[in-house]
């Protein structure tokens, strides 16, 4: 072994980390890796050359031992010659480490440069894909791609590539050289190599994929079990489950132990055989008898014999490293494929620059849409007139949220058209259109930074006064001014913690600042606490003034006064009208209302003679249906 064993592992533990890919398709990625190499051809090329030179110089001590042996055992040994060899040895050692150091530095500078470029490319790609991409794809997978998958490439670029080139070329060159010197002795010296390689092939190809898959599964099972365990720790505590009776984790641990047990038993013999056949000194076993016999027959001179004894025992060990390299390559290729698949995602067409709607009535014309193969919306047609509130209601899974998210182009429609002010939304300038839409959703994103920073997201040049006014309108000003540092208080994991309702009002303040003509509200009050709820509703009512609003709410009382209500059922529009009209004619709407009213009437009761269900608290769904 040499320094490269160290550098194999890199400094980031991630290099050795087990696979976590769930989406990657294995295979076919070598070309992709070499494409990466071509982005830094000179520094990586130089790193390889220096690495090879270092390995070549590294053979010097062996050759020197040969020279010294010849000298010491000659009839008239010359001490000065030995001292000269010793000095050569010092020089060679110095050169070897210098060359290797230079190779390491070049390779790492290039590798981390490439890693940086890849991460930036992924980050930029995220700005181009449809916004819906992030809902479909788990953010965990994206995070993994950007972190681990990219990080894994460092092992290839900075270690496997320069080391692999040296580990392969130097022994091969040495073997060729030795065949030229004496093919019979070379044959004896390297007779074991094919067997060693066969043993490795047996290990790394036949069952490699299957074994790798099992390892991958065991690791994933462990990870899932640990995450489940931690996520459910309060349940585990309160149900008195202990770690052992928590079967999933125990099974996962057992699965890994079984796998390793089986793997060790199957792979230890070929692995150890290959290791021993290639390790220094073993080929002396063949060289000695053959050499002695050839000496005896007089067809071999002593010097050549000694040369083989000393040199051939030292040239094979780099091959051992190739086996190590191959083991990790599979992992890394999957990561690379995963990264590539993100970079290959189609971008959302950005539309005509500067094409911005002047009117804001929104029209769905025969819109159909589905995720992958799952249709969600079928021929949806309705209009949300400019300056009016249009509510969308429907049972869960009826497609309300999807419908609302088509407006800011989280996705584009599959067929039909979505028009704003009479213009197809796809032909509008995407960024220009997004500037005209404000979204207030259930889950509020606050990034770590001050309250003010979070608000300025909506309008970078907002003055303090504008911010203050927006917060007052959003009924959040009092909360902010009560914070230790007011608008400069830091938010996020390490910063101040706001309740769900407070976050929601902050997002409404953003919407006030943005002052966009179109407003989309999705379940904006769902998680709010009692106090916040009323304030949020006041704030929203103010926000909605004179805007084109599309609102989704489960609390039907909140949308009673909407200008028009669109009733969705299983992705189809079944009716459009005002509350009063719909409650008279739409059975779907009546059903939604009666379920809603019944849930309002419920109150917790633990007495024995209490009613078995809220049924008795009021008429049942069928009874209270209006005629």
């Amino acid at each position, binding site marked *: 072994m040499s320094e490269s064993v160290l550098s194999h592992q890199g400094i980031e533990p991630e290099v*050795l980390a087990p696979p976590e890919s769930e989406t990657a398709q294995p295979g076919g990625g070598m070309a992709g890796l070499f494409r990466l190499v071509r982005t830094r051809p000179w520094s990586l090329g130089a790193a390889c050359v220096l690495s090879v030179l270092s390995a070549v110089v590294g053979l010097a001590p062996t050759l020197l031992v040969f020279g010294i042996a010849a000298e010491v*055992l000659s009839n008239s040994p010359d001490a000065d010659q*030995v001292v000269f060899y010793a000095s050569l040895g010092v020089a060679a050692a110095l050169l070897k480490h210098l060359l290797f150091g230079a190779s390491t530095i070049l390779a790492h500078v290039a590798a981390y440069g490439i890693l940086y470029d890849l991460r930036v490319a992924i980050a930029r790609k995220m700005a181009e894909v449809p916004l819906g991409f992030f809902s479909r794809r788990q953010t965990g997978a994206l995070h993994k791609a950007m972190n681990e998958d990219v990080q894994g490439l460092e092992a290839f670029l900075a270690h496997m590539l320069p080391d692999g080139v040296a580990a392969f070329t130097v022994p091969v060159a040495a073997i060729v050289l030795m065949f030229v010197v004496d093919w019979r002795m070379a044959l004896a010296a390297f007779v074991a190599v094919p067997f060693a390689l066969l043993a490795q092939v047996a290990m790394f190809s036949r069952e490699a994929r299957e074994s790798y898959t099992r390892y991958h599964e065991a690791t994933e099972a462990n990870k899932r079990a640990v995450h489940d365990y931690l996520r459910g720790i309060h349940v585990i*505590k309160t149900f008195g489950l*202990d770690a052992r009776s928590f079967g999933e984790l125990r099974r996962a641990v057992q699965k890994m132990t079984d796998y390793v047990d089986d793997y060790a038993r199957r792979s230890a013999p070929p692995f150890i055989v290959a290791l021993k056949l290639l390790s220094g000194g073993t080929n002396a076993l063949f060289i*000695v008898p053959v050499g002695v016999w050839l000496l005896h027959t007089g067809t071999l001179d002593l010097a050549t014999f000694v040369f083989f004894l000393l040199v051939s025992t030292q040239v094979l060990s780099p091959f051992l490293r190739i086996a190590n390299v191959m083991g990790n390559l599979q992992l890394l290729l999957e990561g690379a494929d995963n990264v590539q698949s993100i970079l290959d995602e189609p971008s959302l067409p950005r539309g005509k620059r500067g094409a911005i709607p002047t009117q804001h009535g929104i029209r769905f014309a025969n819109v159909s849409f589905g995720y992958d193969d799952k249709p969600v919306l079928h021929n949806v047609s309705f209009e949300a007139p400019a300056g009016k509130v249009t509510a969308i209601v429907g049972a869960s899974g009826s497609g309300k949220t999807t419908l609302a998210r088509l407006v800011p182009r989280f996705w584009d429609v599959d067929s039909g058209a979505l028009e704003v002010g009479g213009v197809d939304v796809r032909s509008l300038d995407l960024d220009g259109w997004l500037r005209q839409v404000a979204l207030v959703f259930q889950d509020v994103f606050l990034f770590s930074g001050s309250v003010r920073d979070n608000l300025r997201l909506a309008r970078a040049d907002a003055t303090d006064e504008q911010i203050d006014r927006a917060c007052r309108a959003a009924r959040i000003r009092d909360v902010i001014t009560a914070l230790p540092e007011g608008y400069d208080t830091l938010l996020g994991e390490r910063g101040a913690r706001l309740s769900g309702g407070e976050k929601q009002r902050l997002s409404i303040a953003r919407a006030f600042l943005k002052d966009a003509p179109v407003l989309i509200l999705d379940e904006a009050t769902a998680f709010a606490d009692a106090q916040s709820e*009323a304030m949020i509703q006041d704030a929203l009512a*103010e926000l909605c*003034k004179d805007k084109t609003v599309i609102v989704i709410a489960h609390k039907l009382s909140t949308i009673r006064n909407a200008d028009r209500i669109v009733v969705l059922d299983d992705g189809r529009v079944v009716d459009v009208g005002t509350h009063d009209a719909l409650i008279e004619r739409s059975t779907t709407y009546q059903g939604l209302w009666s379920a809603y009213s019944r849930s309002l009437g419920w109150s917790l009761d633990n007495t024995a003679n209490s009613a078995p*269900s809220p049924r008795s608290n009021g008429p049942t769904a069928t009874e209270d249906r209006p005629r």
Partner: protein
Amino acid sequence: MNMRMTQVFTLAEELAGRRDPGLRRGIAQGAIEAVLGAVPYVCLYLVLADVFRGEISWTRTAVVTAAMFAALALQIVIGVRSMINIMTSSYGLFGSTRLRLAEHIRHLPMGWFTHARSGALADVMTRRLDLLSEIWSHFIAYFAGGVAIPLCVGAFLMFVDWRLGLVTMATLPLAFGLLRSALALLQRLTRGLLPVIDDANHAVVEYIRGIQVLRVYGRFETGLSRLLHALARLRQGSIRIEVGPAPLIGSYGFTIDAGFAVLLYAGVWLWTTGDLEPQTLLLFVVVSIKFFNPLFDLGVSMLLLRFGDQALRRTQDVFETPPLPEPAEGQQPTRFDIELDGVDFTYEPEAPPALVDVTARLPECSLTAIVGPSGSGKSTLAHLVARLWDVGGGAIRLGGVDVRDMTTHELHRHVSMVFQDVVLFAGSVRDNILVGNPDAPHEDVVRVAKAAQAHAFIEALPEGYDTVLTEGGQTLSGGERQRISIARALLKDAPVVLLDEATASIDPAGEVEIQRAIDALVKERTVVVIAHRLRTIQRAHQILVLDEGRLVERGSHDELVDHDGLYARLWREQQRSQGWRRSPEPAPDPTPDPTPDLMPPSVPSSLPTIA
């Protein structure tokens, strides 16, 4: 922390908290195998000496060849045993470590599990332990060899000629000094890099989480520039940590290599002064190849195992966190009223108190609701009853027995909790319900599922009760998950039920079913419920109103509304928020007014509990 050499060998056992003879055998076998690897070099010397003396004999050749063959065969046999022993035992030990960690954290107070800690813990229990087991199991044999070979070969050389033997080792102090500095530098750089990695991770997470919002606000460039800054620092730091120690590591390697030259210089000097046979020098030259090479491997292994250091330290930190104390002999309650007796609680030493002197009695089979603004300590109080934390002052008694005087097992047998945030585990629907009582027969599972309004949708799943839930049951709706969690609590059949926001609007469309399920769960039990929606707790026997950790009001719904305090104010606000307006109202309604405006005009009859 400085990992000593002995610690390296016992690391896996220390973490797992048990010994493994198999592992010790494996390490010993690894050392023997490595030492046997020196045999060919001694043989090599013997052959060389013969060759140069011109006395090659067939017998001698045969003996040498046989010795090398025997050494090789032994190495293979022992090596295979060693590899199997080490791999199997060490993965077994690291598996035990995972279970031991899991078992340990189960006894930690819930307060320990902050979001950041849980994330770090998940990282320790997965990636970091994986990394440690991988590095350790692969390199411990090299490490054993790296120690054993130089020791044996060194002893052999000392035996042959002690002067040259000493010379061979002359550069070692310098080499190890350099290695130590390299390790120290690497450790320092790693410590410096960790926050940079954390920042970059954090920036990536935030970028991905926020990208939708950033793009909607057209502020994608703002987010990107934050990210690029963090990534550039990561690049710089990563390069520095690779490049920084390189000179020291190179010097270590060079010093080891230079030892060979020192040996030659000294040998030649002794030889020319007539004090040394040239053959002995040759022996040293040949055999010392096997002395110097493993030393380099040893250094490399040390550097590699250093990567495990972080994992080790973090794992040990977890083990050192004290668990909630358990009584030696647990007392058993015979009745199930709950007594809150001057309860104080503070999350962090510096933080403002979460609960201050809360005193209340919750009679057996009563229904008590805890209400209050967010952050008033409602959940904290319920969690204290289940002893997810321990009270800071005062006491909580169940049936007259302080919860701290019961074993956790005993306490949790009597208390069920249903949380808003439902956790389903990977496994079948049945497994998830059986969490409530692992020994329950199938009929009981079906019975509770029916009571929890879950039977029908479970039967409609592809495999019924045997349907395997993945990703925490994300394929089910929020309401369906909630009903499974209620079935689970029903199966447990505990006399005390804590509902933490369990009635909140997770799945508004399925709310009626959840309400029926909860009705079944709470019947004739001591119930503590935390509720935002005051409507749902009007029938509670008593309502405790918390404000900033203090109990400010107590009474029935009607009493509290009449009292016209905080509760009455909350009630009015909620009543008002039922209707949604195009323009904000100037002031809240002066009186709670559950007017028919709440309801569609045609279904006024569904208002009995409000009216």
